[in-house]
């Protein structure tokens, strides 16, 4: 018998015991639904990680400081050694000479020293509001959500700010917000144990760009305002009272690289005692966590599918017993052992196929509900075509393997016995 004929005949054969086959498929479907949801949830997590890290390009190395080096012989430090190492690490900070060193590394296209600075308040029309977090704008920020202004205008005392501040400035739309002057304030500290009082720092910044704001107010904290890296560094240095260039230090130095050179640059930087991280590292850590969750959920699905296997074996054993005569006829007509084996295995495979389809149909409403719940947090639960196909293939293969034992019994049947007139 050719394969298409076997496929067709075994499908027809399922129709004979609809209730029995339906119940067996339903048992498999529970496993299939669990598997579908496990894959959909982790797919959603993966998608949101990828989205969070922007378009995935492994084209930079971030140097955040120095790695602590354990110098003791067998890895166990005395407390003195540990204290000393920790002090040394604190004293060492990224400075101008580090920037120069990085510039010399092959594969580095640009070296961006970054400092962080925070404001407490922003004054708009003499009214004080909580200030947004400010971040230095780097080439890694794609600024896809810029709705007014140009990123090139971000120099000196200028700012790119989320749209939600526009209304406070009396601007009816994002474009009208451009050119407004806002006063950003960092609160000073009062005199304390002999330390002189620090006055408030006020900086007037002109709006040169406006980014899209979410309609969800809880998202406000995740919307950043951007300053140029130079302005940020200047503010940070002034805040620390740094005047000499050799005393300037940075929170982070960003090395832009050719994508192909990234890992090499990272290795080079690390060999010189710095702590370095690539986007690959950040994404990789997050994806590893997702993988662990996926494995856990798939174990549940596996248990459900495993119990359903017994149903498939049972159903197919009954089917073989009921159809002794038919198997005898087919063998008498010249169907080989292998043909009978294949026919009954495929029949079991069809049950797996039905189970995977029913399971997916069960999973869809759950995925929609979970997706709706996670929608606000930008989290979706997508049932993708590749994941659907994976579920179908896995269930068909498992069902076929479960059907092997009954199929083998069918193939071994003696046609002479089966066709006795009794």
């Amino acid at each position, binding site marked *: 018998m050719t394969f298409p004929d076997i496929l067709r005949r075994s499908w027809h054969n399922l129709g004979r015991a609809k209730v029995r086959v339906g119940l067996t498929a339903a048992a498999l479907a529970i496993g299939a639904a669990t598997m579908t949801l496990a894959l959909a949830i982790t797919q959603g997590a993966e998608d949101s990680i990828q989205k969070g890290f922007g378009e995935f390009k492994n084209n930079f190395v971030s140097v955040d400081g120095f790695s602590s080096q354990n110098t003791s012989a067998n890895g166990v430090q005395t407390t003195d050694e540990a204290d000393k190492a920790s002090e040394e690490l604190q004293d060492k900070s990224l400075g101008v000479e580090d920037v120069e060193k990085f510039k010399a590394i092959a594969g580095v296209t640009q070296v961006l020293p970054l400092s962080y600075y925070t404001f407490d308040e922003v004054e708009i029309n003499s009214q004080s509001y909580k200030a947004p977090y400010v971040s230095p704008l780097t080439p890694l920020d794609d600024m896809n959500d810029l709705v007014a202004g140009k990123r090139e205008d971000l120099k000196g005392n200028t700012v790119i700010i989320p749209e939600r501040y526009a209304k406070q400035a009396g601007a009816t739309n994002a474009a009208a917000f451009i050119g407004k002057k806002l006063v950003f304030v960092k609160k000073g500290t009062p005199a304390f144990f002999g330390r002189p009082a620090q006055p408030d720092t006020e900086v007037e910044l002109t709006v040169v760009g406006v980014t899209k704001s979410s309609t969800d107010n809880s998202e406000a904290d995740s919307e950043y305002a951007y300053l140029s890296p130079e302005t940020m560094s200047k503010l940070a240095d002034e805040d620390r009272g740094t005047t000499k260039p050799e005393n300037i230090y940075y929170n982070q130095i960003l090395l832009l690289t050719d994508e192909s050179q990234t890992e090499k640059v990272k290795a080079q930087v690390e060999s010189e005692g710095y702590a370095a991280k690539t986007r690959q590292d950040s994404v990789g850590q997050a994806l590893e966590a997702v993988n662990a969750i996926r494995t856990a959920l798939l174990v549940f699905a596996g248990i459900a599918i495993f119990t359903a296997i017994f149903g498939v074996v049972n159903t197919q054993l009954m089917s073989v017993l009921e159809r002794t005569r038919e198997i005898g006829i*087919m063998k*008498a*007509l010249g169907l080989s052992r*292998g043909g009978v084996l294949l026919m009954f295995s495929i029949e079991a495979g069809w049950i797996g196929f039905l189970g995977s389809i029913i399971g997916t149909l069960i999973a869809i409403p759950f995925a929609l509900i979970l997706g709706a719940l996670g929608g606000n947090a930008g989290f979706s639960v997508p049932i993708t075509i590749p994941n659907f196909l994976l579920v179908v293939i896995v269930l068909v293969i498992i069902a076929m393997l479960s059907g092997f034992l009954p199929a083998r019994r069918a193939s071994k049947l003696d046609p002479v016995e089966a066709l006795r007139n009794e």
Partner: protein
Amino acid sequence: MIQIKAITKTYGKKQNTFQALNNVSLEIPDGATVAILGKSGSGKSTLMHAMSGLDRPETGQVIINGQDILQMKPKDVDTFRSKTIGFIFQAFFVQGNETCYDNVSLPLEIAKVPKSQRKALVEEALTKVDLTDKIKERAKNLSGGQKQRLAIARAIVNNPQILFADEPTGNLDSATGQMVEQLLFDYNKKSGTTLVIVTHDAELAGKCSMQVHIKDGQIEAIKGASAAKASAARGVN
């Protein structure tokens, strides 16, 4: 030509052995109609199974078309059966939930006849047994006589060289039985297919050109046109 040389078939193990066939030799010319007669348990069905390659005697030879099928691999015997042999059973053994078309198409599928050729062959076979109007009907909706005609269509669809019929009229009333007999003998005349009927119906056996009487696993007598030749063959062994 079917040549059977000294076949022996034993069932059971150790003390409980039962010799179904004991040193049986037989020769059946092409196109003959042969009745194998005997009581229940005489070994007549076992002889048929041995001739068709369904069963394997321990000793002897079953030579069909000059080839000993007992020497062939199981898979090759399967292929041989699918191309050379047709079966008809007392209890019909048609698939009730399948259409007449699918029932008749089964041997063609097993023999891997290309799909394009099947339709014409199935229709031709159903025409020969006068069931063309039932082509899309499910077999369970047919009467007993119609079921046996359907079984005949299934047996002849692949134009077999040998047709084995095991009590073909045993489950039918005499009028319907007559019709089925007529169908089988007509087919034998038109196509030249060798017809081997296992029966204990003496009247049906009388219509065959050759009668083989079996008792206790041995050939008791061979009568009819080819009897002399067959007896000679028996004498050799």
